[in-house]
């Protein structure tokens, strides 16, 4: 049960949030190749270590947020707002 520091509401329990998958997946334009489009649709990095992902504070402020989580320890390394760049982090 993670504890997530919502940038708008403060530290809250995971049960207030909804997981939304990997962040920083960019959406190709319609003239993208089938291969590129399939990559966007179906492929994710699935790392062992730092994973940047988005969460919705659904039972709170209703805002989406990004966070970087270590997939091994579940440690949350940082929380940042939508639109902010991907942080440069190494696995602890």
């Amino acid at each position, binding site marked *: *049960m*993670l*504890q997530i520091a919502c940038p708008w509401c403060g530290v809250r*329990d*995971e049960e207030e949030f909804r997981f*939304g998958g990997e962040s920083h997946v960019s*959406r*190709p*334009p*319609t003239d*993208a190749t*089938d291969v590129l*489009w399939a990559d*966007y*649709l179906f492929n994710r990095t699935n790392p062992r270590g730092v994973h940047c992902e*988005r969460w*919705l504070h*659904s039972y709170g402020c*209703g*805002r*989406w947020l990004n966070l970087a989580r270590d997939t091994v*320890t*579940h*440690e949350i390394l940082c929380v940042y707002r*939508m*639109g902010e760049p991907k942080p440069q982090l190494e696995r602890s």
Partner: protein
Amino acid sequence: MTAGPEFRLATGGCIDRSRLLRFTCNGRSLIGYEGDTLASALLANGVRIVGRSLKFHRPRGVLSAGVEEPNALFRVEIDGASRPLVRATLQPLVGQLTATSENCFPSVEFDLGRIIDFTHRLWPAGFYNKTFKWPRWSAYEGLIRRAAGLGRLPQGGERARYYHHNLHCDVLVCGAGAAGLSAALAACRAGANVVLIDQDRRLGGGLLAERLTIEGAPATKWLERTEAELRRARNVYILLRTTVTGYYDHNVLTAHDESHADLVGGSVERWWKLRAREVVLATGAIEQPLVFANNDLPGIMLAGAVRHYVNRYAVMLGRAVVVATNNDDAYRTAFDVHEAGGHVAAIIDARPQPSDAVAAEARARDLALFGSSVVTRARGGSAVRGVSVRMLSADGKGLVGPERRIDCDLLAMSGGWNPAIHLFSQAGRSLRYDEQIGAFMPARCQQRVQVVGGVNGEFPLAKILVSGAASGLEAARRTGNAVHSVPIAPALAPAADYGIRPLRLTPGGANERQWLDFLHDVTTADVELAVRENYVSVEHAKRYTTAGMAIDQGKTTNLNVMTLLAELTGRTVSDVGTTTFRPPFTPVTIGAISGGATGQFFAPARLLPAHAWHVSHGARFDDYGAWKRPACYPRGGETRDQAAHREVLAARSGVGLFDGSPLGKIEVKGPDAAEFLNRIYVNNAVTLQSGRVRYGLMLNENGIVIDDGVFARLSPEHFLVNTTSAGADRIASWLDEWHQCEWPDLRLVLVPVTTQWAVVAVVGPHAREVLERFPSDIDFSAERFPHMSVRTGHFAGVSARIKRVSFCGELSFEVSVPADRAEALWIQLMNAGESLGVAAVGIEAWMVMRTEKGFLHVGTDTDGTTNPLDLGFGPIVDKKQDDFVGRRSLMRAYDRADSRRQFVGFEPMNAADRLAAGAHLVTVKDVKLRSEGFITSACFSPTLGKSIGLGLLERGFARRGETVSVFDEGCTRPARVVGTTFYDPTGERMHG
């Protein structure tokens, strides 16, 4: 007055001899005292056989005094309410308690199931997997399922209450033995907010069970002082008879609280979710059994448990006690039994000699000590009568010398103490095998947790008190409390460790069975068989033999299994490793986990604003998502079909009212609202004029249809999006995700308003006439209010949004008013339509009408493979120039393939046939039937007087007019492929 039970000591123990408790066990009336557990009271009464093993129905006695108990499992009944599989060792004795042994027939003393035991060679591990295959498993399943399983469902559960609680704290201390108390006291004095939890009903842990001194006084004095201080402190919360069952991410722990489980009038159990900034695990250690022939006989117990019963409950369990050990600790059992006046027949020590201090005390007490010796077998039928003892060879791997027989009626055995690392391991932390103590120990910790006392391999009391206090201070310091370096732990003379030689398995093997798992009846022979069949991984061996898989989860099993596996396969125990420790640590009542979320609170129903009217007018309700909605309104003796057909005909010929309140409603407002919706819908949103309504499909990025509905432009920057009723919440959230995450630059707000507005659809040729009977600033004439348009204004004295859209194919107005005005409006409309023959229309009639019209029902007519091209929206997709969600996917060759399943209509060739949803459309290929699609919606059309269907058929668009075979319930019947619109194909009725 009954005399005191025969095995009870005259003095001593933490029991109140002035408070006699009467209870019943397996039909016998017995007495115990306040302070007893069920197990101690049974032992005091001389009850030796407390249960039967699961597989062989062997007689079993109490093994332990704690959570690890595999044998003494009872159905416990208090005031007519029972709980299954209660560990007698933890169950406080209360008056009027009735205990019944599980898994025996006809009685625990004489069990017919023991026939399995006498023929045990027929039933090795995995026997049922190998044996019951011919002719098929199902031929045996019923019999085996009756023989398997343990316990019965509780009775009187309706009176049981379950609550969930949440608790946050600075420091959570799990375990209130010496280590936990010391930690809690230190953290408390440092000002931290402390929660202290123990599974016992009293604080103290091992201090209650041992004769120990602290600062020259009995340890219980220190315990009393400590308890008093903790209970006085306002920053300490104590939960007793509560078991911490799980340790999860970010220091969340769960606890099962049975402190009020024995209430007369219905038990109360609580389920705690605790979030701790710091955790101190002081969960202690569990003593392990020795493995020798017949080691499961009643009267063979863990050494620590024996002195626990002597010291805490004043129960002397045997008249002649043999202690078998591989460590110094079990000598305390011999000394305590001797001190209490019992007879110690012998101490059998696997080591050449114990430590000097222990040896000296044994000599002083004149106890017979056999070094380098082990018990090879126990003798006895339904209870132990004696043991056979042999010397160990110098390397400890063989037996030498003659067999010596010693008579006894109690064997206290100790294979050493195994740290209770369950919680530590659950949070994903690593363990290491300690060769010296012969057990797995906590290693690396990544979370904010400290491990102290027995669970950390610390056994001398002096060491435990010091490390406990240090951990409490450190936890307090880490949570920001001012820590003064005051000596908190009592200063005790340092003591030696308990000098274990980790040898628990009897060398040399034996012809008789040696038990590893008492509850599941797993013996050393079963593990040997597993290894012979190459189940050498600890996870495979566990599943093959079921060792450690009973409800005690192998607390006295797993370490011995791993040790034996290591021996048999020539590996180290470290290489064998442990199986995974998963929550819960002890079984948890399902009721405790579900808490209050049962019955009507499990999934609260959503009621329509006009629910009361529907109820009072005979509506039959069905569940649609969370909503209770009228399926139909039968009159007189009508069946549901008859009612629905009457409602269809009423709406088609006169006027009907349909409660569409659950219809999804989302306000989209802002300068970029049109642009946003244009990126969402397959259909063009930018070109929609104010006051107009357009039908639209929503796709996911893979091009699959996920929802449909109309969207209305109320003003240039204000849209109202309708979703399906089922999609209301999902689509609102999904739109918000696109806005916040992908296009945050678009200026708009999204507000779901589904439950703010009630919707009454007024449908049928007389719909306009009904509406015109009300005062309104809206002109309902066909010229001023055309099909697919929206008006806002006042209607019947209420502000309303009225859309002229049609899901049923008739002239139709959807009147939206604030939800609290819905019932009044509904009644007014019914009254106004009375002279026109108005009928309330339920969902069933509604679905018949839309099927007649061929209107899509997303999720019924579509599935996870259906794209808009399959539904005939190709021209709209191709016409739109702009990107929208899912567009790129529709450009893939597969999405445009001719062979795809396409949405068409069906009519049976024979008028008597009825199409059914789910029926497959088949062709014969190489003798086998091949499905080319299926019927998705079907009904008998009361309007057209025939059966009709909609469905998805390969190349369906090109096959209109063809005959296909419909396969349903084993029969194949011909049907014609037609267009989807059966009723009013030109649409003049809804445009009228």
